[in-house]
């Protein structure tokens, strides 16, 4: 599903160049649960953004679903993104002006789905996260765990094949964090590919594939029971 070759990302701000990623070769196949770990600033989010087609790499190639995407325009990437990739963020990133239902419905709107179908799918997704009783609440009226569950509903509502999660438990206490991790694991069981950035070895334990980054490079990769460097 994901295949990168020598990915590089260089940020240039005020004439200072930061190399966030420095030659990433990576392969994640369909149905995998992959965790990306590493110290702060090592480039985890940058990598996730590129994998999620939110950003283009400075150098290197990236095949998503066997399709070369590293040089695609913003519009092209947006088109590929919707319906294929769902996102879950540390800070939930729900739109404050929209209710739970409307937030979850949003990806379907951008897919141009007719209203009845949208309603059915969004409600199913919310129900799946046990949030249906809160469907008309606004994000501020919910706890962090609840907000994250809404965010996961939104990520799955369009039947995304890939879910990218950037420290999904980072803003939650361990009980709620566990709950979120179980939901992700469940989704993975049902066939969704998950790539998750995390600082927590406990959360990484849910994954079968772990990647350790340091200074923009992969320093250690562990798949199932085997190691390789």
């Amino acid at each position: 599903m994901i295949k990168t070759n020598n990915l590089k990302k260089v940020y240039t701000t005020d004439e200072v160049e930061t190399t966030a990623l420095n030659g990433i070769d990576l392969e994640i196949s369909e149905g995998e649960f992959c965790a990306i770990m590493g110290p702060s600033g090592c480039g985890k989010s940058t990598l996730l953004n590129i994998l999620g087609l939110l950003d283009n790499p400075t150098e290197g190639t990236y095949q998503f679903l066997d399709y070369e995407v590293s040089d695609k325009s913003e519009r092209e990437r947006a088109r590929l993104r919707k319906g294929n990739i769902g996102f879950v963020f540390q800070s939930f990133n729900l739109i404050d002006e929209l209710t739970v239902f409307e937030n979850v419905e949003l990806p379907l709107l951008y897919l141009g789905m007719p209203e009845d179908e949208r309603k059915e799918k969004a409600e199913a997704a919310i129900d799946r996260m046990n949030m249906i009783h809160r469907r008309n609440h606004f994000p501020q009226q919910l706890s962090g765990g609840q907000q994250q569950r809404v965010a996961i509903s939104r990520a799955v509502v369009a039947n995304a094949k890939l879910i990218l999660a950037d420290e999904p438990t980072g803003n939650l206490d361990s009980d709620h964090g566990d709950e979120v991790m179980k939901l992700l694991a469940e989704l993975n069981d049902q066939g969704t590919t998950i790539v998750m950035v995390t600082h927590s070895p406990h959360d990484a334990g849910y994954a079968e594939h772990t990647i350790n980054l340091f200074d923009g490079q992969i320093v250690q990769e562990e798949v199932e029971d085997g190691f390789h460097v």
Partner: protein
Amino acid sequence: MLKNYIKTTLRNFKRHKSYTAINIFGFALGMACCILISLYVNEELSFDTFHEMSDRIVVVGTEGDMWGKMRATPYPLADAMVEEMPAIEKATRVSITGDLLLSDTEQNFVKIDNAKYVEPDFFELFSFDLLQGHPQEALKTPNNIILTPSAAKNIFGRSDDLIGQRIYWQRSDTVKVLQVAGIVEEAPANSTMQYDVLLSYKTRPAAARDISSWRGFSPHTYGLLTSTEAANSLSDQFDELVKAHYEVSEGKEPDQSFFSLPLEELHLSELSNNSGFTGNRAYLYLFGSVALFILGIACVNYVNLATARTSIRVKEVGVRKTLGAFRTQLISQFLGESVLISISSYVIGGIISILALPYFNQLFGTELHWQTDISFLLWLLLVASIIGVLAGFYPALYLSRFAPASVLRNKFKKGSSASWLRKTLVVIQFTLAVILIISALVVYQQLRYTQEKDLGFDGEQVVSVRLPNSTAWDTRENLKDRLRGYSSIQEVSIVSSMPGGFNLRLGYKPETISSQVKTDSNEPIIFAPTVVDYEFLKMLDIDMVAGRYFSKDLSADRNQAYVINEKAATALGWMPDDAIGKNVNFREEGKIIGVVENFHITSLKEEIEPVTLQLFEPTSWSTVGNLLVQLSPDKITNGLEIIESELKEYAPSQPFDYEFLDKKFKAMYKTEFRLGRIVVLFTIIAIIIACLGLYGLSAFAAERRTQEIGIRKVLGARIGSIVALLSKDFLKLVLLGFILAVPVA
């Protein structure tokens, strides 16, 4: 999708109420100004366009070396145009006569202000509806009159079943009988042709219809072109016509020529009887640009506040993009938002403009109505939407620009990016406001200057006020003394009636006046007797032709002396010099001591009547009289206030209504007076809108700062002081705006 956008937008408005209120209110104020000014501009541009063939009607005038351009034309011109000019299909004459005294019985004459002599073709050129009567026949025969419903009500008390009714017209010494031949709709307000009654042209005395005279100029001539393109050949064809009818020596330019101008352009041309702010292109441009300035300032507010709120909206942008929104979708969402704001503002501005219209009319001296005309409203709605798009364009581009990756990193640097833009815009905004103020002042000065030059001011600032009642008249000497005591009042005179507005006429058979009368006619001569005082002559700057005016030193002047005008002398068959010393009897016996020139001041009436001036009141006389006051040129307003308060002593409830003797002066003075207020008003509005924006920016910055500092709990006291603090920053920008504006303006 649209529903989702609208929901987000409305909830966004709700959450940021003060932001939205500032935006909408500023916009609405700007729109209200624009709507009112558009009404005014629309009215001005719509003059005479309601005629079906308005694009083919031309106004013809005479241009001469001696008098420049004028509307009066020779009588035979209309016929010659039709016969000799291929471009002209029809032509019709219209003659203006002053006010008429009409009645349905032979007494109780009613004054009808605006009467015109018109020819049968009148209704073929102009699209005024004849409500009753036959358009062709009504104007064919002499002594036919067509009334507007209001004139009919004035004369008959009704406007139905009047065809064939008689109307008596008191015309100096005779009473003429007219026949009602039709009822015509009132001319619309945006018609340069105005009338209360129309008389068939043949009613006009034969002398005034001298078919052969190319040297006399009186009727107005209108022509109908064969096609709109024919206008191009008019000037050549007029040249031919001049050659055919005037003796033009070889190689010399003719003394006069004819010119034409499209009827639709008449109102805004130099030939129109413009008064106040109507009929003058300069005002159209002035107020039009004021409206655009104000709207511009309101748009800048929108751009500023919208980009200042970037940090609030940026997360939404990131999320929507992450979920697959295209940039174009976000742009249209934000444009939709600003259009929603501008349309709400349009609605509120519309309401404000409806409420403000009476004041606007008062200020502008216009009679505008809120258009019930849907297309005009839709037009404005379209303009409002376009303004929304224009104002929202930059913010939409700016907001939709953010890449989701950087926004969602939570490390977005708040609001720094566009702040240079906002600062620039605030400076521009205040520069605009100051340019507005300064240019308005310049226009104001300019107008003042041209007025002073035109009118020469000397002796022309005489104001005439009708005395409130007979007590005032009876104690007039006291009133005069009191008024003279004020420094803003130069001279005072009280007379029984105003020249041009004589309200009493007395007829005498010539032989009863004096045995020395040199006239063969035995018909009574009608005089307008006027009770004057010693100051009258000087005040109005009337010249003596022979003899002398009344003198305070000669007691006989007080009750046995008459001063007559030249016209009166002529009527009695005397040369001015002959008249002096003649014993006469105009109800009282007396001696003619002087003859004054024929004067007419308030009215441009064609005919001057015989007038007698006297210091004493004729027996069985009753009047309330007129007060004439010469004001100091630099203290006109103050002088008017003094007169008002003095007259209120006599009749507290009567409205104070004054008139400057020189009509033009009056109109211009009122215009200047009003322009001053309009300038102040619009400037205040512009500044209010700009300050609203500034307030919004500083309040927003304050809110953000308090959030950052984490002292939200003590908002109350703190926010005020922080706004003040931040305003200081902005004040610097305002000052910069001022400094930049001065050289530009």
